[in-house]
């Protein structure tokens, strides 16, 4: 057997991921998550369709790439990815505890720390491909109405680089918010209230005191988004990026932020007790 070549713990991590997939993650809420991924694509496609039918030539490729930046910041970072991570990651432990099946994981010869990482990986393995696909589909369909002009922008201009950065930010956002909600789900019986509070604090991040700013996912992601939003108008609050930094710093920031949260989740998992509500 080729799989016997793997060390036991690696097989166990794969087994956790496989079991999470088998259980279908969010259960009945899986449909909602697919909807979260589909909504921005529909918006983007709707925009394209409207432009195409109107024969609109006022829009420029640069203009619409700013439109996409808005869609990305608003519909993805503040809505779909954020909520998707909240539902999936907050329920990784909490959902099993509510189902009274968490003990099956705790009865396996697996360090609790490894279990936390394995569950985290399982969540990422579902959401990252989903949102990468969704973001790419949105980008392409939003710009599709430009036809050959977009093709040129994509292949010879900055298009592909933009898309690449959006995908990087998408993956990092899933990582950061995933780790955040893993911990939130361990601490709070009802994670939706803290999720709402955190969303507000993420959105006004730029106006928080600087030390607090750093304890946020959006603080790092903002610098990585390839197209900045105009700093006036309705989205100004989201746009404000008071602390531009080199890309490598921002990526490292998200990674460190996530690692710290994972460590916290692992620490809590070590002290976790099975006390299902009777």
């Amino acid at each position: 057997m080729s799989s016997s070549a793997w060390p036991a713990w690696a097989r166990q991590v794969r087994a956790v991921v496989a079991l999470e997939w088998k259980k279908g993650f969010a259960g009945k809420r899986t449909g909602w998550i697919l909807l979260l991924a589909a909504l921005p694509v529909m918006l983007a496609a709707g925009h394209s369709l409207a432009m195409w039918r109107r024969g609109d030539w006022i829009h420029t490729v640069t203009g619409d790439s700013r439109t996409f930046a808005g869609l990305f910041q608003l519909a993805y970072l503040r809505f779909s990815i954020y909520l998707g991570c909240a539902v999936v990651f907050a329920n990784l432990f909490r959902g099993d505890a509510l189902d009274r099946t968490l003990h099956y994981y705790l009865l396996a010869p697996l360090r609790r720390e490894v279990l936390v990482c394995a569950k985290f990986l399982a969540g990422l393995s579902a959401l990252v491909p989903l949102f990468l696909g969704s973001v790419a589909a949105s980008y392409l369909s939003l710009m599709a109405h430009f036809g050959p002009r977009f093709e040129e922008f994509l292949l010879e201009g900055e298009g592909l680089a933009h898309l690449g950065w959006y995908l990087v930010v998408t993956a990092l956002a899933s990582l950061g918010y995933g780790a955040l909600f893993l911990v939130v789900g361990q601490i709070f019986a009802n994670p939706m209230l803290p999720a709402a509070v955190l969303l507000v604090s993420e959105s006004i991040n730029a106006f928080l005191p600087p030390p607090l700013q750093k304890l946020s996912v959006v603080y790092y992601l903002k610098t990585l988004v390839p197209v900045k939003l105009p700093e006036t108008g309705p989205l100004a609050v989201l746009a404000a990026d008071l602390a531009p930094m080199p890309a490598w710093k921002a990526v490292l920031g998200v990674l460190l932020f996530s690692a710290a949260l994972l460590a916290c989740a692992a620490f809590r998992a070590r002290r976790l007790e099975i006390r299902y509500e009777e």
Partner: protein
Amino acid sequence: MSGGILFEDVSKFYGEVLGVNHVTLAIGPGVTSLVGPNGSGKTTLMNLMTGLVRPSRGQVSVLGISPEHPEQLFRRTGYATQYDAFPRGLTGYDFLYHCMRLHGAARAEAKRAAWEALRRVGLEEAAGRRIAAYSKGMRQRLKLAQALAHEPVVLVLDEPLNGLDPIARAQTLALLKELASQGRYVIVSSHILHELDRISDAIVLLDGGYIVAEGRIGEVREEVKDQPARFLIRASAARQLAAHLMEAGAADEVRLGASGDTAVVGTRSAEQMLLTLNRLAVELGADIETVAPVDADVESLYQYLVGAGGDFS
């Protein structure tokens, strides 16, 4: 030997609520029964052994391993909990297969072990059906299969007979006895006493979070010498014999059977009563057919110790 399962002055509080208190206990190989009424702390002890809860005070070790190290503990321990729940949407086979994969088994080995466990608990036919469609007894057996699929040395089973029909019960008891005869540690809980005492090598009686008696069944009996016992006497002159036993002070209570040839005699000193009975039988020329203890099992002992009446089932 690394000492079997050891509790050293272990207490567990759930906030203000007492789970178990000052438990010092050593469990060896063979079948050990944890017996006590609802809320007496059976599950708490089992969860402490397996690290599902952590002691508020004291230390637990299983074969020298602390339950804080699941990666070592569950290579050698299997636990069927009292929680009647399974991951969503799985068949019985899926469930066992995934459990074995969580144990680190390669695919082929996981498959083999899953089928072997299904066979042992007699669930092969239902293997492909969704657990959601299983009866309570089938779910109970599936949990047992999950606990023993990886061939653990220590097997912890919380009320494994709950919900089983008499045949499945007998089969499960036989399986537990077989596992114990292989030198394993089989720890079983129940609040129905007589169903376990026949296969138990040792028993631990719990009440209100405390151990009230503990040891080999015989030893536990010894611990309480003046335990009242009742005997059924079937004899030609049962009525007469019983009356004389009362007179001689060898019996404390007597109940007579309707047919006149049986009597139930209660005594605080079984030995004295039996000697007197033999003497009387000769004197009266009575023909004794049987003398049998009515409550020779652990039930009477338990009732006496815990002071609870009635049947807990």
